[in-house]
């Protein structure tokens, strides 16, 4: 496209506005908080606790999402059954569900008076106002991001590859582990990045389902809001925000590097993209 044409100029203006609008708030956080203030704010126990909790709960949530989500996505990508479209839509619903609604839905399902509340209590588990509840909320809101990408990646696999593996004696699990997962790894990695990013930023569902107890359920986003609501807490909110931005950016960059790295190892994938 020639940039000097009328439409070319218009598109250039649109691109400039889009990039500026998306980048400016991020830059502003770092412009607003000096490294010294950032370190001071992070020196506070509550901020460190919140970050540590966010890291622990989101990592655990990702572990659950990957371990259960990967074979689930594989099955859903392979099988054609009646009601498949309905199932796929249902698992994507949390993507568009307002987070507060997700929190209410989790309470209705797993809360003390929820549909499965009795069973959970009988099993000796406690979720509401507990760190475990945070993990449940994170899994609920982030899993659809992972599943969507993983299902698409498995569906895009060349069907001959699993077939070739079978003729070489590989049973279903070996086909899954040695052919399907490596073939779909880029989609799986990008799904994981999206899910992890979503989990790190989770606010509404966690607040409603698990509450905001310092050191127990108060993740970094909840701590940001808590600091923000406290008179004179804006600096601390800024500092925590800066750390979350860095963490999110690292995840994004890490995943992109992972994808690029693999492409060098595997020239066929390079051509396919």
């Amino acid at each position, binding site marked *: 496209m020639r940039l000097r044409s009328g439409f070319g100029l218009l598109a250039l203006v649109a691109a400039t506005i889009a990039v500026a609008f998306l980048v400016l708030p991020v830059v502003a956080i770092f412009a607003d908080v000096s490294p010294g203030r950032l370190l001071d704010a992070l020196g506070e126990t509550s901020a460190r606790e919140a970050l540590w909790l966010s890291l622990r709960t989101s990592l655990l949530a990702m572990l659950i999402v990957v371990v259960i989500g990967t074979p689930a996505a594989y099955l859903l990508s392979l099988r054609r059954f009646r009601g498949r479209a309905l199932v796929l839509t249902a698992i994507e619903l949390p993507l568009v569900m307002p987070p507060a609604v997700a929190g209410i839905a989790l309470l209705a399902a797993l809360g003390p008076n929820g549909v499965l509340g009795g069973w959970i209590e009988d099993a000796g588990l406690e979720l509401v106002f507990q760190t475990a509840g945070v993990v449940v909320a994170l899994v609920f809101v982030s899993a659809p991001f992972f599943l969507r990408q993983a299902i698409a990646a498995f569906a895009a696999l*060349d069907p*001959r*590859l699993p*077939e*070739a*593996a*079978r*003729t*070489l*004696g*590989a*049973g279903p699990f070996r086909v899954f582990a*040695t*052919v399907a997962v*490596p*073939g779909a790894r880029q989609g799986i990695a990008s799904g994981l990045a999206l899910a992890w990013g979503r989990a790190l930023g989770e606010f509404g569902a966690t607040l409603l389902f698990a509450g905001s107890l310092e050191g127990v359920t108060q993740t970094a986003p909840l701590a940001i809001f808590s600091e923000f609501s406290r008179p004179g807490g804006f600096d601390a909110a800024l500092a925590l925000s800066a750390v979350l931005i860095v963490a999110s950016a690292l995840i994004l960059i890490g995943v992109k590097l992972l994808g690029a790295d693999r492409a060098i*190892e*595997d*020239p*066929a*994938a*390079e*051509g396919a993209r």
Partner: protein
Amino acid sequence: MPLREFELSLELAVEPGERLALAGPSGAGKTTLLRIVAGLTRPASGRVAIDEEVWLDTAARREVPAERRRCGVVFQDHALFPTLSAWRNVAYGMGGQRRGRRERAEELLGRFGIAALAEAHPGSLSGGERQRVALARALATEPRALLLDEPLSALDPGTRREAQRELQRFLAELPIPVLLVTHSREEAALLADRVAVVERGRIVSEEALRPAGDHRDR
């Protein structure tokens, strides 16, 4: 919308060491037949057996899954695993110790003259080299039968003639039944002892090109 609608209805027997070519127009059911033999497609009814072992008998509700048939397949586009190096592709179907697998894989690649490419990934191999890896991989399991689906179609005309001769020499030495699909009558004549022409799911003609086991080049 199905591309074609006809019943695949035929009966074939291939002797050990015999090479049978299935020729005929595309969409005639040749590949489907190979897939049924390999266990990748299940027909509504039919029977597949090798020696005394029944792989499929729909009447008796018997079916051996593809992974337990030990039926070597060379796919049309070779279907090499893109994330694995050539020797790992070949070793994929081998049993036994890890160390021994690598040695045996390289030995097999050597038989096809590409031992030097053991570490190369399929993406960096030429069509002819990929075909040889695919053959080596199919044979690495010491298969009881070998199926080849248009084994030379992915090659450009320049390398095709040489690959044809190479494949001819190689298939002639195999002591197992070989079933190959081709749409080229000429290729069938070069590679096989017998050719069956398939059209719309039926064998319309069958012709012995040379006595089975007569492996003289023509």
